[in-house]
């Protein structure tokens, strides 16, 4: 067996395993009306993204076409097609945060982590996204790291928040 074949095989094993887990999640959500969005959230919570290989499983489970499911996945900004870094950083760019320097904060975040928009730096620690309003508009600039909102974020405060997470074990 060549190295190439064994690699392909592990890839396939991974897909199978993922599809099996996806089937279990589908079974949990199938019953409710309008199940697709809750199901997609559950899939992303489990795998970090909605990989193309699970889309047929979802389509089959909900009696939809693959195209329909794909159409939904691509419509919503939250749904990812690839796994993000260990921490997801969302920098608010809506008006209230703009008024207190959200754009220069975003520039700082990208510079300090070395990423482009939507990008993940090489150490895989962070993915940086923009977001439009986190409901913390009187205490901006606002940044969400994973599910936690931080207000009045100065560049120094951002660096401290990122450092803590970088140092924590993955």
């Amino acid at each position, binding site marked *: 067996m060549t190295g190439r074949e064994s690699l392909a095989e592990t890839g396939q094993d991974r897909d199978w395993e993922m599809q099996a887990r996806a089937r279990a999640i589908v079974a949990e959500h199938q019953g409710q009306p309008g199940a697709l969005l809750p199901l997609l959230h559950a899939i992303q919570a489990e795998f970090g993204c909605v990989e193309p290989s699970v889309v047929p499983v979802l389509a089959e489970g909900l009696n939809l076409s693959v195209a*329909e499911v794909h159409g939904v996945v691509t*419509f919503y900004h939250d749904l990812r097609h690839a796994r993000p870094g260990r921490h997801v950083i969302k920098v608010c760019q809506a008006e*209230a945060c703009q008024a207190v320097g959200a754009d220069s904060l975003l520039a700082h975040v990208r510079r300090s982590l070395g990423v482009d928009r939507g990008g993940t730096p090489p150490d895989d620690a962070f993915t940086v996204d923009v977001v439009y309003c986190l409901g913390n508009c009187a205490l901006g600039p606002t940044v969400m790291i994973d599910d936690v909102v931080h207000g009045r974020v100065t560049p120094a405060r951002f660096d401290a928040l990122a450092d803590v997470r970088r140092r924590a074990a993955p």
Partner: protein
Amino acid sequence: MSAVTVTVPRDTAALSVGADDVAAAIVAEADRRGLAVTLVRTGSRGLFWLEPMVEVVGPDGVRHAYGPMTADDVPGLFDADFLEAIDHHPLAHGPTDSIAYLKDQQRLTFARCGVIDPLSVIDYRTHGGFVGLDRALTMAPEAICAEITHGGLRGRGGAGFPTGIKWTTVREAPGPTKYICCNADEGDGGTFADRMLMEGDPFLLIEGMTIAALAVGAREGFVYVRSEYPRAIATLRAAIATAEAEGWLGEGIHGTDRAFHLHVRVGAGAYICGEETAMLESLEGRRGQVRAKPPLPAHEGLFGKPTVVNNVLTLAAVPVILAQGAAFYRDFGAGRSRGTQPFQLAGNIRRGGLVELAFGVRLTDLVHRFGGGTLSGRPVRAVQVGGPLGAYLPGDGLDVAADYETLAETGAMLGHGGLVVFDDTVDMARQARFAMAFCAIESCGKCTPCRIGSQRGVEVIDRIMAGENRAANRAVLDDLCEVMAEASLCAMGGLTPNPVRSALAHFPEDFKRPPTARAAE
């Protein structure tokens, strides 16, 4: 000495500036000194510039406020005997209800927010909760709808449609299956009232939705909450479970044979899903694309059934109207805008937060008397009122009454009640560009004026900013705005020209600056 009650908010905004650290420090310090403290986590009072704002309940039951606190301030406050509710400390603000910002408000919807433990039914009832629902349980559906109509309640989601009329349409629609959908998508930059309410007083929303269900004959409801609000989602889910367990929701509401089942659904980062028909599409598991109207959701809404779609603040105003009567609610307000509006002061503002007042308050009062002007201390140059689709008003043009009709006359709109303040460093050409860019990013793609027009709008403003052929490009921009305003299917494309045109009208100099001046900044 018996245990002293200390409250620390667990509202997202308070947490964003360290409320958890402060709470932990208070517990640790009390422990170290052997003092008995009962820590209660509340919602926020909405005085965000004082967050984390801690309150100590004095021996007379009066709450005294301290803030903005850090964990490092805690030992010093214990040294100053803050557990005795002292007022002589640099961080002390005296009795909370006497703070001018709060005292001068008319809090109907937000009366309990920041005061009670959001997940305690006992607290909720002690502060007047479920009185409106108890009354509604004794009333005929027609009578509930009539009460809301007479109260003059209009939709707080932006369009200001009379709620009683919407409910009556759904009540009269044929068929046994109807739905109540709460729009908690709150996508407008500069707004946070829905979030605060869901985190700080979730039973109020549940009560309002249940009353709506009784009024139209619905047995099932959904709250569509944006994914950017994880704490609101968690609080609401916990509150629903508690309300069911304690007999206020589900089968047999408060010992009657009435039933209402409530579910939370989470959005996925699409601004357009705040538009009601896009929200319904999303709830049904599809792309959030706008539906053509008619049919109205009141006739054919969720899963094709008659559906009430109301904003969080609309539904949260309902219990007060039932509890205190339509006349009480109507007494607040101006012209055809009745009741109170939770305004949200945001952006570059010294005292940002939630200000609930009867309609008719002047914008300048909100921005200056309450808000204290800019955080930077520079002059207020522009205020965007009513979210990303709302107009920019100049700093010297704020002597306007905040009610639906008066604002419309000045070419502005109230929207969801957000005011975003900018100082004199703002570049209004960039703000106009952002309005178009936001529309391009968030357009549902169904119609051309919006999908393509906004993209073209960005390009044209870029050329104007770069100083290319300004007169000709300005004419193109005017035409684009005209087409978007006239030919878009929904208000996303239709109202995006508002911020653009108002920026052009009030701040023309920003579109004439030499490109090098901008690049050099």
